[in-house]
């Protein structure tokens, strides 16, 4: 009897794992061909936030793919800012996030917002990867060196050295108004970000 029970456990656990893995879902665009590195389900969140809604957004300056430098505080008094951290170039969900933001520029503009895309990858990697996305209207910033310094400041650096899939909405005064440290395995629905942006813009 114990042997049989053991078998039931093995089958049960195997099926449980199978159903867990089936929860990771994404659609890879043909634009990336076979170049997307497949990853397994990851721990949904693997960091501890160091900022909160209502607090001043830590300032930073990062190099962009367009070969200039972008400082968060340069938008102070001018624009709301959305920071979109994604974990890594050439991975499944990340490759299907910014291209969507790229076709709703008008939504960001209507809400007086700029979008800053950030990863911990270096510039050449980001250059090659974002080139597959078409011409992006927003800056892509590299938080590569000192490694993930900005992700660390915000508390969205995972223990394996990549950032969370996280969204921050910062108002014109530089105050954080919305934080979504999303399950790294899933793309945040656009409507949640747009609702947060509209709320900030109405203030």
């Amino acid at each position, binding site marked *: 009897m114990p042997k049989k*029970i053991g078998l039931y456990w093995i089958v049960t656990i195997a099926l449980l794992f199978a159903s867990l893995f089936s929860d990771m879902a994404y*659609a890879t665009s043909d634009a990336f061909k076979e170049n997307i590195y497949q990853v397994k389900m990851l721990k949904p969140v693997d960091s501890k936030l160091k900022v909160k809604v209502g607090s001043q957004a830590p300032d930073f300056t990062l190099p962009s793919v367009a070969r200039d430098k972008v400082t968060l505080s340069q938008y102070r008094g001018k624009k709301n800012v959305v920071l979109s951290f994604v974990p890594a170039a050439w991975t499944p969900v990340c490759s299907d996030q910014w*291209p969507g933001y*790229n076709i709703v520029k008008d939504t960001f503009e209507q809400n007086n917002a700029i979008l800053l895309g950030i990863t911990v990858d270096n510039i050449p990697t980001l250059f090659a990867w974002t080139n597959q996305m078409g011409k992006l209207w927003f800056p892509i910033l590299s938080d590569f060196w000192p490694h993930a310094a900005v992700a660390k400041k915000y508390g969205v650096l995972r223990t394996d050295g990549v950032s969370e899939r996280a969204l921050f909405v910062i108002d014109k005064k530089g105050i954080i108004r919305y934080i979504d440290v999303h399950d790294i395995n899933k793309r945040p629905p656009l409507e949640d970000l747009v609702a947060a942006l509209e709320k900030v813009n109405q203030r």
Partner: protein
Amino acid sequence: MKKAKGFFLSFTFVLFVATALSATASKAPEKGETLPVFNLPIPKSSAEKAYLGLSGDGLFKIPQIKAKVVIVEIYSMYCPYCQKDAPGINELYRLIDKNPDLKTKIKIIGIGAGNTQFEVDAFKKTYQVPFPLFPDKDFSIHKACGEVRTPYFIVVKNNEDGSHQIVHAQMGGFPGAQPFLDLVLKASGLK
């Protein structure tokens, strides 16, 4: 012990069913096959209902669309190639729409893999898509279709007897409206 055995058996069975239901097809739908089984919501818009020849509320299956041929595009608002192809697919719709002989015979729909209704609406608005688009928020249709890369085109021929068959399928590589229409006409035997 019997109780424990019963519990394990039931638990295993439930998990098996749950896994089977969320199962990912091992391959994409291909020519000569039938479509994977899935339902779509009947559109609320009366214009879209009329376009598809559907009425009422609830769900429908693609072969219920009143047309000889249905072109299905599995796309995503987050997919650069789907964005690039969008004007060309709109042109395909117009080519069909302005041809009185084809207008009632060929219909186009899009299924947004992993896209919410809001995201489908955003894509529709950005590209002024004139045909119905459906959300596949939880990727269930995308999974049933073997998690194809997007865009993926499936041309379905509805037969007189109610059966249907995939007469053409391709990943990406949209060749432009007229060449694609020629391909659809040839594959479906409409020409």
